């Protein structure tokens, strides 16, 4: 009984502090986004270059703290995953809940190719992307006719089917025991094994993903995706073929998730079906939703926050997923557009919370 009361009060405290954090975080993020978006070209270049040089120099700063370094690598991996899911959910507006399946397919492809067929990591990485995107294509076809929550359930089903196959096809995937002993990547005869090397690989993958997402957003395909997300019927009337566009989103998202899985396999050196469950999909989804569906900086921020959070919540680590659940509910109620909403990034809109404060300053923008 005392135990129950303790759980109840911990959850209550967590819920209230989450609520306050979301409220406070909204204000801070609004203000920061507003300031950053409205920077002039010079300071913006300085900020981007400064950020990049910090990212590049990170191994020299925290190289002697292996645990922290490892966490940074995992966070970067989650950024890649969240960005790949963002292509499907944020850009195309298709609620896919089976993303861990693509992640798992990528990881298993690399694991099997490197352990059984002795491929090099780089070839296996490419193969993972290809295989995962093939599955993305296969999933895309039957789910074209589904929308919203139906699609979500069908994709959960897909994720579960992949997990069942990984567990049950013992002769091929070695079943629940998983595949140990995946070698690290090698480059020109030099085998990569230090954290710094892995960090640079995943950093490169992350930057590549950011560039792809960013370029996609301003391309014909990206605009088509966003039109589909906003209003499918209107987009169709404007001559966009929803089928191709949606499948492209699935394929791209799956390919990037497959690459992330491939990195995971060679970094951890071991894969088993438990790494790629439904819960993993939900965690990635939470990252996208927390940061702001569709907004690239938002998704990065969401991934950093949620991937780093467990390290700070060590004492109440058993409460982690319960807190994720509350986070989803509270975000949906208080701030469905996420911490860094897509609308704010266009820079024209002044967020409500700071609009009030700036009113006296006399700067007026057209806003809705």
């Amino acid at each position: 009984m005392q135990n129950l009361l303790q759980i109840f009060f911990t959850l209550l405290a967590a819920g209230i502090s989450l609520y306050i954090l979301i409220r406070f975080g909204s204000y801070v993020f609004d203000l920061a986004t507003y300031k950053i978006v409205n920077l002039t070209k010079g300071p913006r270049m300085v900020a981007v270059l400064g950020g990049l040089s910090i990212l590049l120099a990170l191994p020299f700063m925290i190289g002697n703290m292996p645990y922290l370094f490892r966490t940074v690598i995992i966070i970067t991996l989650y950024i890649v995953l969240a960005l790949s899911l963002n292509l499907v959910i944020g850009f195309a507006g298709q609620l896919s809940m089976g993303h861990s399946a693509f992640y798992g397919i990528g990881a298993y492809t690399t694991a099997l190719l490197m352990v059984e067929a002795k491929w090099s990591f780089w070839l296996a990485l490419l193969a993972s992307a290809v295989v995962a995107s093939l599955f993305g294509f296969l999933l895309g076809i039957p789910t074209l006719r589904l929308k919203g929550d139906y699609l979500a359930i069908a994709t959960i089903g897909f994720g579960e089917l992949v997990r069942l196959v990984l567990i049950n096809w013992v002769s091929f995937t070695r079943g629940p025991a998983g595949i140990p002993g995946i070698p690290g990547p090698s480059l020109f005869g030099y085998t990569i094994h230090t954290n710094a090397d892995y960090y640079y690989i995943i950093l490169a993958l992350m930057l590549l993903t950011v560039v792809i997402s960013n370029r996609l957003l301003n391309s014909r395909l990206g605009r088509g995706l966003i039109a589909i997300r906003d209003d499918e019927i209107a987009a169709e009337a404007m001559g966009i073929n929803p089928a191709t566009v949606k499948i492209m989103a699935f394929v791209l998202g799956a390919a990037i998730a497959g690459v992330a899985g491939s990195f995971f396999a060679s970094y951890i050196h071991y894969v088993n079906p438990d790494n790629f469950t439904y819960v993993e999909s939900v965690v990635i989804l939470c990252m996208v939703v927390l940061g702001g569906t569709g907004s690239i900086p938002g998704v990065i921020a969401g991934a950093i926050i949620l991937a780093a959070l467990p390290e700070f919540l060590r004492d109440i680590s058993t409460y982690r997923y319960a807190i994720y659940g509350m986070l989803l509910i509270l975000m949906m109620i208080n701030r469905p557009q996420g911490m860094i909403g897509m609308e704010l990034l266009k820079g024209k809109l002044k967020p409500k919370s700071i609009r009030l404060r700036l009113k006296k300053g006399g700067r007026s923008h057209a806003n809705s």
Partner: protein
Amino acid sequence: MFLDQLSNGLAIGSIYALTAVGFTMVYGIVRLINFAHGDVYMLGSFLALTAITVFHLPLIPAFLIGMIGAGFFGVILAYFAYKPLFEAPRINLFLSAIGASIFLENFSMLAWGPQTNSFPKLIENNVYRFAGFPVSTLQLVIFGTTVVLVIILSYIVNKTRMGRAMRCTAQDMDAARLMGVNTNRIVYMTFALGSGLGAAAGVLVGMYYQAVFPMMGFMPGLKAFIAAVLGGIGSIPGAMLGGLIMGISETFGAAYISSGYRDGFAFIILIIILLFKPSGLLGKSHQEKV
């Protein structure tokens, strides 16, 4: 062998049917796929288990406590997680439901522990044969409870004043409000009824498999959804039929094809039904209007 599987499939099918009815009722009223329905089912099972093991109650009061407690949880869930979002885009509502589901799973993991709890054996399980058709006592209990609950439900929905208000609200919420129906109360009543039925299914499953664990609601919740879609979402007889079909096909699939893929058959059924008859077996199809 065949008949054994058939009675087993019918028992599991009636449990799915009960869960699916709760699903379909909530969908009919608020157009929400109550993703947390499976977890309410799990909560009902845990509440009944607690009533039996901690408070030493006999089976029937424990069963009722499970149903009422879970109905109460369903209303709380609707109040905190769903009500603020009824006007929001449906996708936000659905994500909130996923959040609620994760929360409930982990809440029960914290409260009762992640291990599998065994449900005490309260009914002597004998196997009877009716003209070669084998039925165990537990299966008879499951059939009986399902039939009784469904009769009570159809009485409530078809004959009472509240049932009429529920049908009105399902048809057109705004018009129902204009006609003087307190739609908020109807929404909460629907959640309470649906959750109670789900919990009844949960307790029956706990008795049938003698196992209760925090994740037990996840798969049945999804399968109940599939059963509701199979029968035509929003239709109560459809949900019953869909549940029975699901239970039987799953049992036969597990017995004759592969038991490892037991949970996979449901999703294959879902994909087939969505491709060929998205409105379900007994559902009405409607065109999307711009």
